[in-house]
């Protein structure tokens, strides 16, 4: 199947067009303007979902790679956009979450909806999509910045006191991480003379060991702090509970996973041998991340703070997949990578659903506190919300037949095959603690006596708020029950991501370029 490579620009172009159109529609804050922006956001997130599914069908199902040389400049000289199974899976998940979130936001948002919420959301989508299809290090940096910029504004939209403080911390620490990334980019270019990922992969083996260790370490710091890995996660619990619940939901589902994607993309491509040599380090980071996240979740006392800490703990599982990527089992080499990708799929869906449900609970009751006397009795007050929360929570904890069970099983099996008993033990303990934490949320927040509270002035639109959560929960359950094709796609994505030669062949960077005289392209 020969596909026009220009489709690769679509995940960047369509959200940008949507954002531009909704900015055009905003002259002043009126109800009609908000309605126009809603329609545009829904339309363009649906278009984006269609494009993403098309790309998924080409790459993960058709087992192909797609490359677009922007402006027809040959590979190391121009901007390269690239998609394989891994990119397409992330694109599709992002698109699905974005569609659900747009409808959830319509149901729950307060006056902050009028402050250009939807254009910002579309800018965020553009940045995330761009990071997933970027084919060189510098554009990865640029799209990281685009999505961060949109996320800064979304986080502090409305300017409530808590938001301003959370926003400052988030901006500061993320900017530092980005700057480390930029410094790495500069060093890479200075030493290797290229930034194109395929060109780098072809050249980096010739570089001295000390340099490769330096680059790998700097990238681990940069991506690790974006992903919320162990020593660098502290910006996340300091800020994620402050914005509107809809914003928290999309942040928890998407943003840390962009860092994880970058790790999954860069490490097998540029440092495959370090993936083996650093396995103890990566697994230790994974274990500490899991443990710190889950213990942090026990110590805090509002729904969204608990769930934010679980984001960190879950990121640990994904990095565990990366740590086990180099070791195989009887089925295939790189089974750990496939299990890690499958875990990302599960996590993005379930986490967003949980954060949406937790946010809806907070908005319905007017408080997020788990102490007695605040939340409680939501089973009676809003049964549908309780049902979706229950299903999502138990999927996160890994109870069969949910997607959480299958994805944890995959990781566990790889760990046992690789004879890393201790990481298997840690992941089991963390699973148990996650289950405990979910039971705590359920008992304090949903079951229990109905508190005598007067509901807040503006309750969320129940139908619009709960339907997207139900869709996500249904997807999670169907991944758990019909896991065959999903796991197959993850395996294709993992084998494509681990195949350096294939990547280099697909992008085909030339060391020589045909002479371009200044006349040919006036």
């Amino acid at each position, binding site marked *: 199947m020969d596909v026009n490579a220009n489709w690769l620009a679509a995940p960047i172009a369509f959200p940008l067009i949507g954002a531009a159109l909704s900015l055009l529609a905003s002259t*002043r804050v009126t109800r009609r303007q908000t309605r126009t922006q809603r329609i545009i956001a829904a339309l363009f997130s649906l278009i984006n979902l269609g494009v993403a599914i098309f790309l998924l069908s080409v790459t993960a199902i058709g087992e192909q790679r797609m490359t677009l040389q922007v402006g*027809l400049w040959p590979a190391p000289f121009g901007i390269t956009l690239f998609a394989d199974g891994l990119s397409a899976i992330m694109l599709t998940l992002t698109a699905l979450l974005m569609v659900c979130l747009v409808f959830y936001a319509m149901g729950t948002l307060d006056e902050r909806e009028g402050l250009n919420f939807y254009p910002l959301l579309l800018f965020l989508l553009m940045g995330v999509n761009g990071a997933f299809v970027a084919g060189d290090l510098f554009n990865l940096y640029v799209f990281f910045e685009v999505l961060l910029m949109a996320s800064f504004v979304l986080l502090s939209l409305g300017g409530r006191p808590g938001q301003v403080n959370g926003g400052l911390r988030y901006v500061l620490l993320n900017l530092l991480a980005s700057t480390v990334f930029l410094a790495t980019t500069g060093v890479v270019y200075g030493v290797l003379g290229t930034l194109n990922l395929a060109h780098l992969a072809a050249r980096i083996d010739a570089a001295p060991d000390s340099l490769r260790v330096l680059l790998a370490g700097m990238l681990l710091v940069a991506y690790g702090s974006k992903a919320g890995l162990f020593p660098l996660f502290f910006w996340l619990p300091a800020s994620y509970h402050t914005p509107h619940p809809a914003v928290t939901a999309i942040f928890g589902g998407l943003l840390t996973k962009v860092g994880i994607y970058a790790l999954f993309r860069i490490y097998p491509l540029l440092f495959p041998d370090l993936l083996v040599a650093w396995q103890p380090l990566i697994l230790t980071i994974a274990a500490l991340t899991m443990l710190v996240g889950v213990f942090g979740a026990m110590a805090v006392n509002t729904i969204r703070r608990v769930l934010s800490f679980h984001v960190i703990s879950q990121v640990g599982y994904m990095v565990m997949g990366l740590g086990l990527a180099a070791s195989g089992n009887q089925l295939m080499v790189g089974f750990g990578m496939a299990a890690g990708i499958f875990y990302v799929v599960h996590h993005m869906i379930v986490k967003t659903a949980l954060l949406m449900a937790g946010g809806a609970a907070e908005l319905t009751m007017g408080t997020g506190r788990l102490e007695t006397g605040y939340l409680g009795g939501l089973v009676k007050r809003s049964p549908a919300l309780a049902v979706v929360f229950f299903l999502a929570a138990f999927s996160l904890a890994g109870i069969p037949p949910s997607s959480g069970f299958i994805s944890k099983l995959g990781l566990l099996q790889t760990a046992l095959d690789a004879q890393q008993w201790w990481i298997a033990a840690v992941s089991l303990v963390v699973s148990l603690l996650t289950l405990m934490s979910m039971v705590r949320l359920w008992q304090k927040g949903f079951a229990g006596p109905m508190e005598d509270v007067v509901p807040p002035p503006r309750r969320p639109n129940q139908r619009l708020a709960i339907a997207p959560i139900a869709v996500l929960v249904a997807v999670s359950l169907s991944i758990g029950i019909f896991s065959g094709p999903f796991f197959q796609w993850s395996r294709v994505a993992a084998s494509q991501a681990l195949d350096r030669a294939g990547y280099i062949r697909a992008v085909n960077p030339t060391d020589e370029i045909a002479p371009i005289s200044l006349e040919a392209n006036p």
Partner: protein
Amino acid sequence: MPELYLALLDRILTPILFVLAVVFLIVGHNEPGGGFIAGLVVATAFLMQILARGDDFVRKLIGIYLQPTMGAGLIIAIFSAVLSLPEGGFLYGVWWKIPLGGDFVLEIGSPTLFDIGVFLVVSAFVTSYLLELSRPATGKRR
């Protein structure tokens, strides 16, 4: 706070800055300049207006057009990128020659279009940023 001398001076300087911006925008492809610089120059002109006549004056004058201008700029930039899809690919540069009668031929290319888009976005963004920051910090909840 409106300033008398600046208010006199800006009548001369503002048109000059606008013309300068247009010059930068047009020569920008081959010489120093370009959409970004031109946008900053326009923002400087508005900054002078803010200093000379106060932020409320400027806000009333152009406040509601800023966001649509950003949108329009983005649309123009994307349009220039998509325009070349039949010619070769996304963001490929294409040029047209428009005879203007006599010996004059206007050569215009999609990079110029892209630069115009950048110009609109940057000028509107920086102006609105300056307007927001020049709002006095009285504790008025938005």
